[in-house]
């Protein structure tokens, strides 16, 4: 197909604008990595302008990852919370979505109302905090796994996907004598991998990146997830006492530690998401259109 001159200009502009935008979005991440591996004297010599590191030093990483460092236990907490949390969250979401996707279920409208109302009105930060306190979950090892384990939005996305699965498939399995549990496990779930990957990833990101629930409910450094430790390193530009204690010696300049800590905390998600990307669009469309 031949382009007219106007259209060619349109296409060219589009390419340029999108490329510039993408570079602007990505370059800060590259910059952080560069700063984290550049020795401090070079960093200050060059006034902080380091796009391509010329000399390398891993002193910041060595400092943060010294034996006995708080980072290890915090990382362990985050991995544990995230793994348990995603499994629990997928379980709650799949079971509820599958039941509510059955249009003939008596009382379906009432149950939907109960689930959807929480999207419209919530008790708020303080009533929720007091509830957690009264449940005795404050500062417990499970609180972060539990409080993020369900999202009405994800349930609705999954329900819409299940509703799109042909009724006849379920019926024929049912005639063969399969129970609802078996239909869900052996017929519906294998067909639902895109939406399970999408919703699973959404939960994964929520669990890995949470710091605010940790700020509210966790005060013990040994139960703190890695984002909370990072927040202390980055926001207050001071290091948590436990980190200093374990690392012993005087720390290297803060800015490098901050950047190295950012890389350590952010890296796993940035490695994972491109692999699941192909499912996003399929998975998001079904839910979004129906709301």
């Amino acid at each position, binding site marked *: 197909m031949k382009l007219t001159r106007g259209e060619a200009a349109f296409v060219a502009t589009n390419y340029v604008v999108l490329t510039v935008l993408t570079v602007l979005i990505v370059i800060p991440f590259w910059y952080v990595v560069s700063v984290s591996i550049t020795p401090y004297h070079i960093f200050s010599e060059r006034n*902080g302008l380091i796009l391509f590191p010329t000399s390398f030093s891993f002193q910041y990483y060595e400092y943060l990852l010294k034996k006995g460092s708080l980072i290890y236990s915090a990382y362990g907490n985050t991995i544990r919370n995230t793994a348990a949390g995603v499994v629990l969250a997928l379980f709650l979401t799949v079971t509820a979505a599958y039941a509510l996707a059955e249009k003939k279920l*008596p009382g379906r409208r009432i149950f939907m109302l109960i689930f959807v109302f929480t999207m*419209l009105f919530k008790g*708020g930060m303080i009533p929720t905090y007091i509830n957690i306190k009264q449940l005795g979950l404050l500062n417990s090892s499970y609180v972060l796994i539990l409080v993020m384990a369900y999202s009405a939005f994800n349930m609705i996305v999954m329900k819409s996907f299940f509703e799109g699965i042909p009724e006849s498939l379920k019926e024929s399995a049912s005639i063969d004598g399969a129970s609802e*549990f078996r239909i*869900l496990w052996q017929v519906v779930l294998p067909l639902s991998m895109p939406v399970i990957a999408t919703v699973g990833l959404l939960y994964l990101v929520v669990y890995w990146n949470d710091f605010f629930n940790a700020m509210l409910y966790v005060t013990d450094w040994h139960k703190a997830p890695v984002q909370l430790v990072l927040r202390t390193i980055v926001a207050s530009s001071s290091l948590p006492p436990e980190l200093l204690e374990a690392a012993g010696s005087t720390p290297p300049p803060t800015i490098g530690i901050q950047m190295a800590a950012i890389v350590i905390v952010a890296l796993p998600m940035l490695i994972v998401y491109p692999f699941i990307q192909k499912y996003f669009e399929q998975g998001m469309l079904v839910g979004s259109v129906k709301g």
Partner: protein
Amino acid sequence: MELVTARIAEQSEPVLRRRLRRVWKYKLLYVLLLPALAWVVIFDYFPLYGIGIAFTDYNVIQGFSGSEWAGLKYFRMLFESEMFRHAFRNTLLISLYKMISGFLCPILLALALNEIRVAWFKKTLQTAVYLPRFVSWVVYGGIIALLLSPETGVVNKIIEWFGGKPAYLLVEPAYFRTILVVTDAMKEMGWAAIIYIAAIAGLNPEVYEAAIMDGATRLQRIVHVTLPGITGTIIVMFILRVGYVMSAGLDQVINLYNPMVFEAGDILDTYIYRIGIEQFNLSLAAAADVIKGAIGLAMVLVANHIAKRVNDSGIF
């Protein structure tokens, strides 16, 4: 009397039994519903009971029932507090700005990406713009602080380059809201565009072919085919966004703000956190929670109503 009830029971029994049999048929589905139902009741509905503390002099030791009724005392205190008024105004302003930028940017991005015909290039761009969505605001806030820092920040270097005066941008109330809106757009617009990209991909290709036959240019095709095709999605996304109008971005603000910019950047959520969790004035903070929740609920109901009127595509 007895006779009457007996007769009614006789008549209605088959109906009741039929209904019970239907319920029994789906018993396993109710079992499946149970875990999520329990979660919602414990973690979403139990807290509703705690709203009452906004109307009492809440005492942690004696609990809710042992606390004295206070009426609207804490609401009055809020409206007299300058800090609350700032937080309230900032929440609405920041939310409004973000609604405009955070709403238009993803749509424009999706439309622009759709015009890229080179598959690998499009895919690379998409992967790249999704990236910031996958880091927390702790991480992104740290990166922004590095870029905006007064001595070594790259942004200040660029300002100097163009002959401007360097400044400590994150402590200037005049710049703070702009920083929030721009960084929010940079972080979220790639991911937010996915829904529109998916919606565009679902449009009927025959309509495009017909438009090409009729001699429509690319821009005309965008305006007359693509945009009308995704209007439903745009409206649903807009309603969802309006429902969050009272949430101006807690995770972002709490990682970027500081006392110097409270006047311009403090929002209801950060206000509630400071008053309630840090200063432990639970009743006052809960009153702010109630105001926030009530206005949010009203906004989403109104938006849904309007959407139904205009386009018949409300979400409930």
